[in-house]
Every structure is written in C-alpha cells, then in structure tokens.
C-alpha cells in the first residue's frame, strides 16, 4: 500500500473513532433521562430547558421525529433489548394507548389538576391541538361545522396521516365527510397542507389545526380562523413514564413538571395549547367551544372507521 493510501485509511479510521466517541453522553445515567416525542421542536425545546433549569444537574436526551419514525423507533427498540426511552410524549392518545397495551409505559401518573377527560391511569394529556376552520379572506366563515360543506371548495386532512384528523373523524363520523365529498371537498395530506392550500387560494375553506391557521394569518396570509359550533375538536398529546425505566425518579419528576402550573405555562407560551385550565396559551377566542372525541371507543374501532372512510375519499 502506498504511503498516501495508508495515511488516508488511518484518517478515515480515526474519524470513525472520533465520531463514535463524540456521541457518548457526558453525564452518568442516573442524572439523565431519554425523551421520545413527536411534538414540534418549538414546544419541546423550551420545556426541556425550563425543566433543566428547575432541576440542576438533570439532563434530558431528546429523540424527536414524526409519528411514523417514532413508532418505528419504539418497535425497533422493543426487538433489540427493550424500550430505551424513559418518558414518551406522544401527539395523540391512540398511539399512547397502543404503547400501554404493549406494556411499555404506564402504571403511574403524577398528581395534577388536568381534567379527567384527558387522562387515564397510565398517561396524562399535556398539550392540545384544536381542529378549527380556516377560510379564505373575503369568504364567510362557517359558524358551525355543518356549514363547512357549503363554503365552496373545501379541503380536509387525511386521518391516516394526522392523528388530529383521525380524532376529527371519530368525532364527526363518516356521514359528515360523505356530505363534504358530495359537495366537492378534497382530501389532502396534513393539516398544514390544508392551511397552505387555503392561503394560496386553491381552496376556499378547510379544516386544520389552530396553530397552523393562526401562524399563517399572523405572517400575512389572507385567511381567517373560526371556531365553529358545537366546538373545535380537541386532540390531546399525553405523556407517560416507561415501565422499565432505570431512572424512575427523574422520569417521574419530568412528568410531574410538565403537568404542573409551571410546566404548563412554558408549554402555553411556546405555541401549544395547555391542558391545565387557566393557563395562558395561544390565541383562543373568549368562550370558544371545544369538543372531545370518544377516545376509548375510537381505540377499538379505529380500523373499522378508517375502512369506512376509505370508501369516501379513497385508500
């Protein structure tokens, strides 16, 4: 081997070792927890910072990915030595329920004033998404959900892709969507696609999540946001502690923190809707109505519901 080749190989091997070494966590395990979540960075990062500030010496290792990747990661963990997360913060109750059924998380929840409708013995909802109506400026905004079908060209998100859309489906039932389809509604992929489409004028109105709609309106897109009666559909994202965690105390501390007044305030100011009552959060009109789907029934009926839905908008 020529000198050049040898030098090159050494460099490559050295780099390999370097990069491997670089990733070892600096602190010992007992002061650190691993958090798996699908929630956006803009919410998760402030929460982690605030938690670390309130708990000197604590480290939170974050794995953040869209729901699909999160599921794959958990499943792979399970088959290669066990779940490596100490805490999971999901984006919808159904995913979390699946984890509970597999025996991965649950069995304990922190003391908190978060309403019963958003908790079970295994997990507690800490952030909310609201499905609201978004309308192109200049068009009349629907005062209730039934009027959405008459709003012109309407877009709805895909329940197979977004848990929020799934929640809406569970709440409204398939008849609602059949009616929409018969009046020319279109299904897009994510709630953000709905927002973008309405903002660009491709659609006249649609169903999307409040954060997305208000962000667009704030940056200047010609849209209006409304909370149609009987209410915006609320989807909560729960937190749960892993059953096999080796850092139970710190994990539970984290769960307690995010369900506390302080943690919920941080969540509220980061752009997500808090679940704890009377905590300030993003834009929500006075007395805006909200409704909750029946998550328990949905858990067992998910497959059938989606199958039904597929006959309306296609698979």
């Amino acid at each position, binding site marked *: 081997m*020529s000198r050049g080749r040898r030098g090159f190989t050494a460099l*490559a091997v050295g780099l390999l070792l370097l990069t*491997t070494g670089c990733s070892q966590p600096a602190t010992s395990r007992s002061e650190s927890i691993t958090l798996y979540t699908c929630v956006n960075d803009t919410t998760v990062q402030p929460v982690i910072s605030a938690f670390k500030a309130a708990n000197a010496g604590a480290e939170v290792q974050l794995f953040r990915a869209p729901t699909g990747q999160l*599921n794959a990661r958990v499943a792979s963990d399970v088959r*290669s030595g066990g779940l490596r997360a100490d805490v999971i913060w999901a984006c919808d109750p159904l995913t979390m329920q699946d984890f509970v059924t597999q025996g991965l998380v649950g069995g304990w929840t922190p003391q908190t004033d978060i309403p019963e409708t958003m908790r079970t013995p295994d997990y507690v909802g800490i952030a909310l998404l609201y499905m609201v109506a978004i309308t192109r400026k200049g068009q009349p905004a629907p005062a209730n959900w039934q009027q959405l079908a008459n709003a012109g060209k309407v877009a709805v998100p895909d329940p197979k*892709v977004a848990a929020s859309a799934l929640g809406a489906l569970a709440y409204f039932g398939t008849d609602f969507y059949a009616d929409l389809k018969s009046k020319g509604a279109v299904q897009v992929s994510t709630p953000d*696609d709905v927002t973008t489409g309405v903002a660009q004028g491709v659609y006249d109105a649609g169903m999307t999540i409040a954060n997305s709609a208000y962000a667009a309106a704030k*940056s200047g897109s*010609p849209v209006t946001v409304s909370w149609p009666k009987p209410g915006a559909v609320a989807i909560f994202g729960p937190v749960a502690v892993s059953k096999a965690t080796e850092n139970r105390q710190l994990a539970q501390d984290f769960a307690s923190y995010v369900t506390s007044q302080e943690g919920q305030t941080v969540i509220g100011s980061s752009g997500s809707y808090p679940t704890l009552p009377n905590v300030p959060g993003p834009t929500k009109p006075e007395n805006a109505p909200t409704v909750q789907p029946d998550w328990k029934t949905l858990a067992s009926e998910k497959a059938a519901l989606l199958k039904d839905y597929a006959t309306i908008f296609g698979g």
Partner: protein
Amino acid sequence: MMQAGDRGLLWAGWSVLIGSAAIVVAVPLLMLMRTSWVEGRGRLAEVLTEPGFGTAVAHSFELSAAATGLAVPIGIAIALVLRDPRLPGRALWRVAVLLPLLVPDFVLGYSWLRAYARAGLTSELFGFAWTGVQGPVGVAVIVAVSAVPLVYLIITVGLATRAEPITERAAHASGATALTVLRTITLPLLAPAIATAAVVIFVLTLGTFAVPQVIGTPAGFSTITTRIYADLTYGSDPQTFVDATTLAVLLVILTLVVVAPADVLLGIRLQLSRTSATDLDWPSGGRIGRALKPLGLAIYLIATSGLPLVALVSAAMTRAVGVPSTPANWTWDNFLAVLTPRTGEALGRSLLLSFAAASILLILGLITAGLGRTPAGRGVSVLITLTLVLPGSTVAIGMLLGYGRWLADTVAIILLAYLAKLWALAHRPISASVDRLPLAGLRAARASGANLATGLGTVALPLIRPALITAWALCFLTALHEVTMSSLLYGPGSETLAVVVLNSADLGRVGVTAALSVLVTAIVLLPAAALWALTRRARA
C-alpha cells in the same frame, strides 16, 4: 502472477470484505427477515391480500418502467449533444446537466410543486399551472429527471469506449448521413451501456421514496415504499410494524427476482479508462445544429432544474403563503429561523460523517471491485445491491434491530446505515474501471521487482483515479443529504443536518421548508464544486 508475499494482502482483503458484508449488510437484512418471519408469517396472506397492496406493487413497477423509459432516451440525447466539441458553452452545460444529482430528491420534488402546481411560480408569472404534476405523471417525470444525469454519465462512458469517433468517421466515409450513422452504428454500439443504464435506473427507482411520498401520496398514488411508510406512521401497534418489515422483505425479493439475471447487473462493463481518441475527434454538427443544441439544452435544463429552483428560492424568501412574491413581501426571516446553532452543529457533524462514510466506502468499493470476479465476490455485489434498493427507513430499522442494543444513539450506527445503503454506489464506478486495467502494466511492475501490493498501488491506482474520485464524490454527496435513515437513527449528540431539516419541516410552514431546502442544496453545491475542480485537475 501470484507469489508467496501476496497471500497476506489477499487474506486481508477477503476478511475485510466478508466481515464488512456481514456486519453492514447481512445482519440488518437478516434481522428484517427474521422479524417478518417470526412475527409476520401468519399475516403474510393478509398483507398480500390487503386492498391496495397489489396496486402499490403495480404502481412501483409502473413507476420504475415509466421513469426508465423517460430517463434513458433523454440521457442518451444529452450525451450525444454534449460530445460535440464545438458546442458553445460546452464546459458549462456538462456541469449543468449534473445538477439534479446534487439536489436531494425531496427538495427536487418539493421545488417542482412550488414551480408547477396550482398557485406555484408558473401560475403566478404566466397564469397557468400543470395540475398533473401532483399525481402519477408528475412523480414519474420528476423521478426520471433526477435519474437523467446518471444515464448521461453511463452513456458518455459508453460513447468514449465503444462508439469511438473512428467508427462514426468510417461510416460517414462510407456514405452514411448523420441520422443513418446514429441508427446503424452509434446506437447498436451503445447497446450494452444503454442496457446497463436501464437496469440501474430501474432498480434505483424501485426503492425511491421521497418523491412518491411528497407528490404522489396526496393524489392517492401509492408505491411499495410509501406503503411501508404509511404502515409505520399509521400504526404504533406491533402488527403494522411487522407489516412494514414484511413489505420491505417482499421488495427485496421482488428486486432479486426481477434482476435475477445477475450477470446483467454485474457482467456489463462500464469502461472508464481513457482511450486514444480525444474529445476533438468527435464530429461537430452543422451550423444550424450547433445553434439548436444549446437552445434545446437550455429549455430542458430551465424546465427541469432552473424553474423549480427559482420557485424554491422564491418560496423561501416570501414572508407568507398566499401573498405574491414581490420585493415588498420578501424577507430573510425564513432563513434566520433555520440558521440556529443547532443547525451549525448538525452541519458540522453531517460533513464529518459524510466524509468518513465516503472514505470508508472507497476502500470497501476497491476491495469489492478487486475481488469481484470470484463467485464469492459476485455474491457480495448482489448483496449490497439489495440494501441499495431498500428504502432508507427499512435499512434503518434493520440496523436498529441488529445493533440497537449497543449502538443506539451513536454516530456509529448512522455510519453503518450509510455504508449499507451506499456501498453499491461506490462499488459500481470503481469496478467498471478495474475491469479495464491493462494487465501488461501490472506485469511490468512485477517484473521490475514490485510485489502485488506495490504494483497495484503504483500502477493500477493512478489509472483508476477518476473513478475513485467519482465514487467518493457520489457517496459524499448522497450521504450529506440523506434524510430518512438519519432521522430514525439519530440520538442527542448525533443529529445530522437532515434531521434538523425534517424536524423543522414538520412545522409545516412552506417558507421555512423552502429555506431549509435551499440551504441544504447550497451546502451540497459547495463541496460538489470543490470536487469538480479536483476532478478536472486529476483528469488533466
């Protein structure tokens, strides 16, 4: 040729090859198959008969066929146009046609939407939009466009070595017009290169994910790869996870079956050595031809790369969706939102990781090429093609299943995933070059007292230097904008740039996603430009 001292080198080469193949490719594949088999074989019937499965399979093959059918003729046309030595601006065109190679495919798909879909750039500027872009036709076209540079590269090599200028001169001197020469001489002589290009594109597009996902899925167009992704997204229960791995295994089997004439993949020689003919020996076209060629090239490049990239930058600069892209509405906010310290860190890590991956892959590619003519070597070649075709998410899952216990959250596991996915990419150009090594030169070295290692190092390596640089560059750039595997395998302290992209893109804002795409593309362009300059000097 073999002497006593050679045995050590050979032994070292074989152990690295077999060892690496086992660690990097065999283990993940086996883990996937095991999961499928152990947990999923009971469900195999259901997976196969699930509504939409047959459609997805059909779509995958139709997509590959359509993309290949589009990309190959265009690539041939471009190669033929660009060999004219007196083409105005030739050096520039030869770089410009390679642009789609540098743009990550999720960026390409996204930028086409911004350019041609409803409410896109053409709609804003000219008032028309191509609604078909968001559907199977759009997917096929975009996938084809991103494959054209590869076809062009393969055909150019074929032209240089099989359809040398003298064959065309002889035909002209025998009374044949340009078109007749093309039909009777050039294309028949290019047949092996065309076949290689077709097979390569077909296999690569079977595993393509980003474009069908971004463009096809909203229109209801599914492929095996998008179905795998849907399974992962849709279900957090074990059943759908296993379904996803089953689908992945099926994809691998389908690929094997379709390209089972393994010799088609492996036997065709891509000859990268220089010939005695210089560029100037190619015929230069007539005056009209010479004016039309740049025009045609320009139209093609603007439509497929230029306009989409402009649309992308425009979207990145516009402050909100739905407002016209005028200077009054331009802002740097989207870029600022993206350029955080975390992005900087991730970028540094990505560059390091890509550098390491490309360098290791170079060595692996060399060894594979060197030992590739033996039956075992051929076996390894087929094996590494399988990980090339697997969608990134399943390679990542395979890695986690195999090594998650020890390597989870480290950079090492991401590196392993890159090695698995890109090994075939490194191996291809190198083995083609090795095929054409002149034996006489090596013998002369041995007769002059060099052992095998020195002989290879001093005689063979300099000759295949362009191929080495090409292979390294290809791996480096692909690793740099790899998204799917990194986002699944990363941990705190091992985030790559792509992970930052994905996490931010999930915020869903058009402007920010566009800004990130522009950033990622720009970041890829800079090392690419450096590598191009290096290649020019190496070839001189």
